[in-house]
């Protein structure tokens, strides 16, 4: 299934900060067919470093989408039954307007003059996309990690626009530890002299800082078990220690490789802005409690967490599920056993598939 990324331009968007962006582009992909009643649309939300290419094969890169194991004919998000949409988030660097985009007022990239964005702003832009598509109500909004935050934000901000939400391995508010890891990543980028106050477009980008940030990220996405299983103490291409600071261990090689790969596909300033949006995310802010935040939620919710995920631990999913229960919302929750850490929602999808398939089928049945 070859899928192309499309882009739509809107005149402007007003952000939570009060700033206005004009114009604003959204990159998106769709899979499957919208039914005549327009009731089978599902919005997939990508995580921090994802993009609109969630499924199928990109004609550009030849690569499968980041959730291709979950989206497609007969898969969890069954494109024979549902119309699946995925868009790149606001502030991203994969087609949607972000800090690397040209500021029409100056003719130069926004860089650090790009306004600070929030998860709420990302959802506001997605709502513009869904409105433009003429979809009155989404059958479901689903995503893992930062994608789960957007799914929750949809259920809270647009209660009459979502029938169900599937937040996976996520939280209703970023914790101190989560903010801390993001801050280390940001500081790594900003400590790279090539970052140059964010003004590096057309010059040498801060690749070293961005690679270090990504290496830290990858550690938090795995688990002690999965790293022991995958790398152990194995040496990379050698029998003995090198007694120098080249790569000795497999795990070093892996992290360096993932770091250097990331530099080719991700903008350092997007890293700063998107992690900031995650850190600002707190559904209780201005509402007093999570229960109050969920007061108007109408969506059925399926929340999933993973036993070995220490970046978005199960207690965070349980907290939001319990708050939904205090509102007597229709909520299902399970903690799936997995060794893969936070990455589980991307790679350990067998059980997740059964859950999502059953939940969606039942949700779709209920609105018929």
């Amino acid at each position, binding site marked *: 299934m070859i899928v192309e990324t499309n882009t739509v331009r809107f005149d402007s968007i007003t952000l939570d900060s009060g700033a206005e962006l004009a114009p604003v582009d959204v990159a998106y992909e769709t899979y499957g067919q919208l039914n005549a009643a327009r009731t089978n649309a599902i919005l997939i939300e990508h995580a921090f470093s994802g993009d609109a290419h969630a499924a199928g094969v990109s004609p550009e890169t030849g690569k499968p989408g980041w959730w291709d194991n979950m989206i497609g004919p007969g898969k969890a998000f069954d494109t024979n039954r549902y119309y699946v949409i995925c868009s790149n988030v606001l502030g991203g660097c994969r087609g949607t307007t972000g800090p690397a985009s040209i500021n029409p007022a100056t003719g130069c990239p926004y860089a650090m003059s790009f306004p600070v964005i929030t998860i709420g702003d990302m959802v506001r832009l997605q709502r513009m996309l869904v409105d433009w598509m003429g979809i009155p109500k989404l059958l479901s909004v689903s995503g893992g990690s930062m994608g789960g935050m957007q799914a929750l934000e949809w259920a809270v901000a647009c209660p009459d626009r979502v029938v169900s939400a599937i937040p996976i391995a996520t939280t209703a508010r970023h914790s101190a530890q989560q903010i801390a890891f993001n801050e280390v990543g940001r500081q790594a980028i900003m400590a790279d002299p090539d970052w140059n106050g964010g003004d590096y477009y057309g010059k040498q980008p801060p690749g070293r800082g961005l690679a270090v940030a990504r290496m830290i990220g990858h550690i938090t996405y795995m688990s002690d078990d999965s790293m022991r299983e995958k790398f152990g103490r194995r040496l990379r291409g050698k029998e003995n220690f090198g007694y120098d600071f080249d790569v000795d261990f497999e795990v070093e090689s892996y992290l360096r490789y993932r770091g250097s790969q990331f530099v080719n596909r991700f903008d350092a300033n997007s890293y700063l802005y998107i992690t900031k949006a995650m850190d600002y995310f707190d559904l209780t802010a201005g509402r007093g409690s999570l229960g109050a935040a969920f007061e108007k939620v109408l969506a059925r919710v399926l929340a999933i967490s993973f036993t070995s995920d220490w970046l978005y631990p199960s207690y965070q999913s349980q907290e939001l*599920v319990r708050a939904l229960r205090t509102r007597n919302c229709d909520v299902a929750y*399970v903690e799936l056993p997995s060794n893969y850490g936070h990455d589980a929602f991307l790679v350990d999808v067998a059980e997740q598939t059964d859950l999502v398939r*059953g939940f969606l089928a039942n949700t779709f049945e209920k609105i018929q």
Partner: protein
Amino acid sequence: MHKKIPAFVRELLGRRDYAIIGELVEPGTKVLDLGCGDGELLKWLADNKGVDARGVEISSERVQRAISRGVSVYQGDIDQGLKDYPDQAFDYVILSQTLQETRHPRQALTEMLRVGRRVIVAFPNFGHWRMRVSMLLSGRAPRTKLFPHAWYDSPNIHFLTVHDFEELAALEGLIVERRYFLAGADEVRALPNLLAEVAVFMVRRP
């Protein structure tokens, strides 16, 4: 003294207590099943009675199967799990074959009556004559066909009889709206504390 139950309530999903619960629950109501296992009773109630079905279950595997069949089940502990729900959130709260496994049965019952207008409890009757005989003759923790567990493997941590439950209901000032006593597939009409293997009660606050 054993009267046959009409065929349609004899068995539901292979269980007689389910058949009675299936009969008791009014269509279109909100139901919470505690310790709902794979969610098969909830699924049946949703499909056949159009109820809004929710469940709580501790086992991750069973919760997965329940959600996969389209039932909204929350993975959690019954003793802890009820306190999140608002008062009178459900028309029925069901506790099937689990009361004897809860750590604090009286507290569980009180909480169930807080979140539900009616509570349906099904439990094995430890007053059944076979239990009494087993204990009397063996001098050991009773083991019967219905209770095959060795004492150290048993999930049952409270041993209650029909009389015991009636007493607790009276102590709590509950109205017993229905009571059913079963032995095998048959309904027990007399001496239930001696003859019933399973008891099903529907109670509510006055």
